[in-house]
């Protein structure tokens, strides 16, 4: 069921996820479109999330934004970073001053993550929550999987030490799976929808920000799913739901994003993930399992949660016949 409306306030508003935003020219949503979007969200009972740009909005905008309960996403370079609920760091900056209560998204490519692991893991004790988004998951090689495994081990050791010391920082890659009892994916197109400055709806900002000529093989990547004027019109909506994702619905890598945009890009089907996405998510799942067991060695921890069971595969595709 639709629960969230993400409003991309400007073409240049930061990416907070896997997709790349290459737009450099400002294109602010019109005040009327913004108001209609908020009205839509209120009528449909949706939680609103604004993605703010890196410049000051005109005063009248700010008033409209504040007219409804919402959360704010802004990049670390935005004038709104200090009031944002989630701050996005595009790339690693070791000198950035984190807020101990802050929630951050760190968008890094695999190389940076692998090379800067020891610096990045220090952030865990400097903020409340860190979401690491690897921006080139689809390019992981077998060697990268191995490296990623050891990177996760390093993060685990740091987390274990912090938890034993009574701290409870969150790292999406490792602590989410420990806490979850069921799938907690991105669910773009089923739980959330994005409104863009052009007044149209998109499954997620990635489907709006794709360049006009971008085509991963089956036609344009930029595809809208209705507009404020004509209403929401998601074709084949079932394909965005977990029930219609043949691999994911049987999977227990609950923390996985199950990114429908990456799915579309890598397999051509929004409901079918790539091998790379699955293996990365399973390395995280297995590392979460080990972390949970390690923390429990020190005492009672999450007593209501069952152990995460041991599994023999990294890609659910490989065991599909066993279901």
């Amino acid at each position, binding site marked *: 069921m639709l629960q969230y409306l993400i409003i991309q306030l400007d073409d240049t508003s930061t990416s907070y996820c896997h997709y790349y935003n290459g737009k450099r020219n400002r294109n602010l949503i019109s005040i009327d479109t913004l108001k209609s979007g908020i009205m839509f969200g209120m009528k449909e009972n949706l939680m609103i999330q604004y993605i703010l740009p890196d410049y000051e909005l005109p005063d009248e905008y700010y008033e409209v934004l504040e007219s409804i309960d919402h959360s704010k996403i802004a990049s670390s370079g935005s004038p709104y970073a200090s009031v944002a609920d989630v701050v996005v760091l595009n790339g690693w900056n070791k000198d950035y001053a984190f807020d101990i209560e802050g929630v951050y998204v760190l968008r890094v490519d695999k190389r940076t993550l692998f090379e800067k692991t020891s610096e990045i893991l220090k952030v865990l004790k400097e903020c409340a929550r860190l979401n690491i988004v690897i921006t080139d998951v689809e390019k992981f090689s077998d060697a990268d999987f191995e490296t990623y495994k050891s990177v996760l081990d390093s993060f685990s050791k740091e987390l274990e030490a912090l938890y034993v010391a009574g701290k409870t920082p969150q790292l999406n890659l490792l602590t989410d799976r420990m806490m979850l009892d069921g799938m907690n994916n991105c669910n773009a197109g089923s739980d959330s929808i994005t409104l863009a400055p052009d007044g149209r709806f998109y499954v997620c900002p990635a489907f709006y920000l794709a360049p006009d000529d971008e085509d991963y*093989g*089956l*036609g344009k990547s930029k*595809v809208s799913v209705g507009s404020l004027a004509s209403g929401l019109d998601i*074709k*084949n909506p079932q*394909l965005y739901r977990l029930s*219609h994702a*043949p*691999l994911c619905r049987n999977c227990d890598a609950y923390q996985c994003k199950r990114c429908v945009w990456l799915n579309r890009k*890598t*397999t*051509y*089907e*929004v*409901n*079918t*993930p*790539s*091998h*790379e996405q699955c293996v990365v998510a399973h390395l995280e799942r297995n590392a979460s399992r080990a972390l949970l067991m390690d923390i429990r060695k020190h005492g009672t921890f999450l007593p209501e949660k069952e152990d995460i069971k041991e599994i023999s595969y990294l890609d659910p*595709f490989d065991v*599909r016949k066993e279901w």
Partner: protein
Amino acid sequence: MEKNDEIKDVDRGWLNGAAKTITFIVTKDCQLACKYCYLVGKNENERMTLETAKKAVDYILDNRSFFKEESVIWEFIGGEPFLEIELIENICDYIKIEMFRRNHPWFNSYRFNFSTNGINYHTSKVQNFIKKNWYHLSLGITIDGTKRKHDLNRIWKTKEMEMGFQPKPEDERGSYDDVVRNIPLWLSQFPKAATKVTISSADIPYIKESVLHLYSLGIHEVNINVVYEKVWKEGDDVVFENQLVQLADEIIDNGYYQDFACSFFSETIGKPMDIHSDNRNWCGAGRMLSIDAHGNFYPCTRFAQYSLRSKKARTIGNIGNGIDLNKVRPFIVLDRILQSPQECIDCEVASGCGWCQGENYDAADTPTAYQRATAICKMHKARVRANNYYWNKLYRKLEHEGVAREKAVKHVKSESSNTINC
């Protein structure tokens, strides 16, 4: 055994369909311009080179981990494949040499498959090829039935048509006479051969006479399908049902069921299907491999551009980079329920109602293979009614003749309700 307890069933395919099918689209050209042909982008320019075919063969034989099946069907299609018989002969020679040289298990378990319009069947080049490879050949000639039925659709292509002009009906030249003269030769070489008949809206009134005509030519197995495309008009299902009932009467009253099979009649169709145990995909797209003149790989020929009306070609790799396994995943995990609308899932007569994965993709609202096209719904239901009539009448007849019902049905294989006929 008494003769009259036999009921001939359609062939389930070599090794019951367990072999890997690899299809070379050797040419997109054809002498005919059949009106129902789904190959919307046929042309004379795209011809596979031997070099491309060799690269494809090398890639396939070198990558046993992707092609694990015990057996293989090397299939050659077009357009009309026999327009490229010399190329095909060279490719087949290369395949045989390379399978042998690499000590590949397929060397002991392979077939070459052809589906031809039959026009060039008698030519010395084709005949030499047949003699050379006879032991490993499956070869079907497409003949649609009586002359008037066949010529209704299977007409010669003209220069004007290539330029986009449709001929007046009186100027159309049918191909029946050019095909039928080759049927005796074909049947003498392949006595168990089957023919494939495709039914579109205009063909419905000729179904009965066409199937009987094919039987009279000596063809014992008629694989007949209604097209999956959205071509059906109001009332077509009624005429279709009447035709099948009349055909059922002829087959049963004359005892043709003992020696002849028609795929329209099957004991396994028209039943509800379990959402768990009967959840397989209908067709083998993604488990097969098609290769075009440019060396692109497709999950099935229907995903190549020349087969598609409204969508972009959907490749799964090419001879240079190999198979992109991520592109194959959606086809492998695709099942019946995932792609079916609720109406099909709840349908009381669902079994035997099929789909073409490529047509699903072509007709879908988004670029997905996961949206089942249901244009044949009414036609399937009409088929089920006629099919029920057929079996009720046939069993009654056999009972009257003293054949126990159990004995009558034992000859009808029913391992699978998904008779793949695409």
